[in-house]
């Protein structure tokens, strides 16, 4: 996060709609934001003129429609995924990109991967999607006494929303919850639909991701132990390759993985 003097800083509530509202306002005000900061981002605000923008669903929808008109639905989805990277730099990049998209005649600008900004957006989206794909594997559910499956995650980017359709299709016959302990919200499936939820109390141990012993089902520790043993048994000692392991499964993801956090 850049701290220091900025001529023009916009802040918003952290939602995609909020961001799109900023885009509308800045465009309308003919301003050039140097930083677009989510008030969610737990970051220090820089010095300078700060404009806070209240989220407007109406204005956000207008920007959405404008994006689809000038490119297509896939591109809107791509920009949303890019936004989930949650970086102030990416926000400014998105702003500059959208300004160009709206100024220039509708055409194929948005497809030109030789353009440095377009490429950077696509690369950021790829990074976010890659993390979401990783978490299709790295989510570890624990079964509770009342037969619900719950998991804690702490990803770099705001990917929990992107996990919804995968887990909904796979575990459609049980209640489940995937909770992001850093962003303090999660997705909950009640066998009908998936909803975003927040929790009043801290349910997960922040070092291990485990829920309290009284909350776990009777067989939970047994299967976890079996899994930990399996993990060790399937390793081939003669082929040890820690570097490869770490590059596929970076250390920052280990804390909530029972096979690595022992």
């Amino acid at each position: 996060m850049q701290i220091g003097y900025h001529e023009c800083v916009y802040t918003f509530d952290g939602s995609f709609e909020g961001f799109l509202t900023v885009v509308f306002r800045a465009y309308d005000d003919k301003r050039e934001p140097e930083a677009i900061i989510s008030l969610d981002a737990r970051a220090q605000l820089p010095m300078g003129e700060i404009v806070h923008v209240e989220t407007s669903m109406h204005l956000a929808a207008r920007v959405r429609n404008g994006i689809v008109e000038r490119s297509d639905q896939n591109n809107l989805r791509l920009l949303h995924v890019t936004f989930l990277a949650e970086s102030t730099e990416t926000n400014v990049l998105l702003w500059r990109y959208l300004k160009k998209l709206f100024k220039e005649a509708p055409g194929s600008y948005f497809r030109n991967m030789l353009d440095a900004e377009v490429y950077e957006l696509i690369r950021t989206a790829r990074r976010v999607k890659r993390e979401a794909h990783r978490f299709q594997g790295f989510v570890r559910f624990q079964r509770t006494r009342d037969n619900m499956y719950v998991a804690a995650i702490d990803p770099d980017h705001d990917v929990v929303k992107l996990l919804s359709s995968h887990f909904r299709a796979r575990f459609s016959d049980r209640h489940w919850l995937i909770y992001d302990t850093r962003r303090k919200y999660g997705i909950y499936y009640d066998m009908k639909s998936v909803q975003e939820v927040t929790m009043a109390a801290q349910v997960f141990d922040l070092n291990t991701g485990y829920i309290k012993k009284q909350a776990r089902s009777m067989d939970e520790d047994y299967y976890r132990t079996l899994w930990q043993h399996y993990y060790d048994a399937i390793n081939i000692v003669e082929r040890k390759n820690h570097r490869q392991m770490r590059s596929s499964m970076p250390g920052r993801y280990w804390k909530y993985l029972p096979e690595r956090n022992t």
Partner: protein
Amino acid sequence: MKEKVLQKLNLLADAAKYDVSCSSSGSSRSSSGGLGTAKSAGVCHSFTEDGRCISLLKILYTNHCIYDCAYCVNRRSNDKPRASFTPDELADLTVNFYRRNYIEGLFLSSGVLRNPDYTMEQLNAVARKLRYGHSYNGYIHMKSIPGADPLLVHEAGLLADRLSVNIEIPTEKQLQILAPEKNFSSVFTPMNQISQGVAENKAERRKSGKAPRFAPAGQSTQLIVGASPETDYTILKLASGLYHHQKLKRVYYSGFVPVNQHDNRLPALHNPPLVRENRLYQADWLMRFYHFSYDEILDEQHTQLDEQIDPKLAWALRNPHFFPVDLDKASYEEILRVPGIGVRSAKIITANRRFGRITFSHLKRMGVALKRAKYFILCRELPAVTAKLYPEQIRRRLVNNNIQSGAGVQLSLF
């Protein structure tokens, strides 16, 4: 009871670990109210300290075996503790691991208990329990036991997503030295039955989408590298045939790890041949994604892959007349041949050059390995001298480069 399952798990996972296949891709099953899905893109759930991905619960039904293959840890003459699961235990383990999202599915292999039919029947019983007892729609990879009745193999195909029969030793002559009770027909008979089953099923499903699926993720096999004296050329030629004729989805190469007390029929190795294994995977990639044929990669004169440089670079150095490639005009296939340019970059280049000339900084951004590519492309920003180097000079530069950066062993293809 629980203690016993833990012991069996330790023993029978340990005995399964030399099978390198881990893929959970290529299938598609929806859950329709039950448990689980199988997807066309596989998912890795964890990575072990050897750097390999855990996607499936890879496990043996039993490590009892009536055979005595020299390279196998479970051979009959080894004095080892033996155990077998029951179908209920394995189905329960799979479902409970799956529900916790530890795994993408089950990879069920086995030693041969009593006889091939009995063993195959046990494996089918596990899969039946999962599919019908637990309404499980997750991924199942099953070994087809060589010598099992074709009807049992057919049933396995209806239950599993993928079937595999391991060839292990790449020529029949060597196989018979190391595994006197086996021959190529015991391996190729079920393999051909499966590939025919898959082809017929595809045709049936084209007529009616309701026809039951038969091994929708196809079949794979494994070759052990370095346990017998076959050349890389022999191995690639075999693999190429398997891809073309049996339509295999994957051929896996497993660097031989000496698992038994020394046997005169096997080489004494201190370390598994990891670099050779990696080069074979790279060559395999060239055949599957880069439109290379096996006899372009190696031939009767060049029978071993170069350990110092990757096979694509080796091909380029042997074929200097093909280069330089003009990125602004060349076809996708031609661009794919440039060392340092991968499938993704080649696609980006061909799809975007209508917007302008491809420059050095574009390539850098795409992640092209310019260190290698710069000798083989036509690009205005390059110093003129690079395109005029002789193959030997390029090789010397790149090999020295590799040694400096310690990139001699790079195993990142899984």
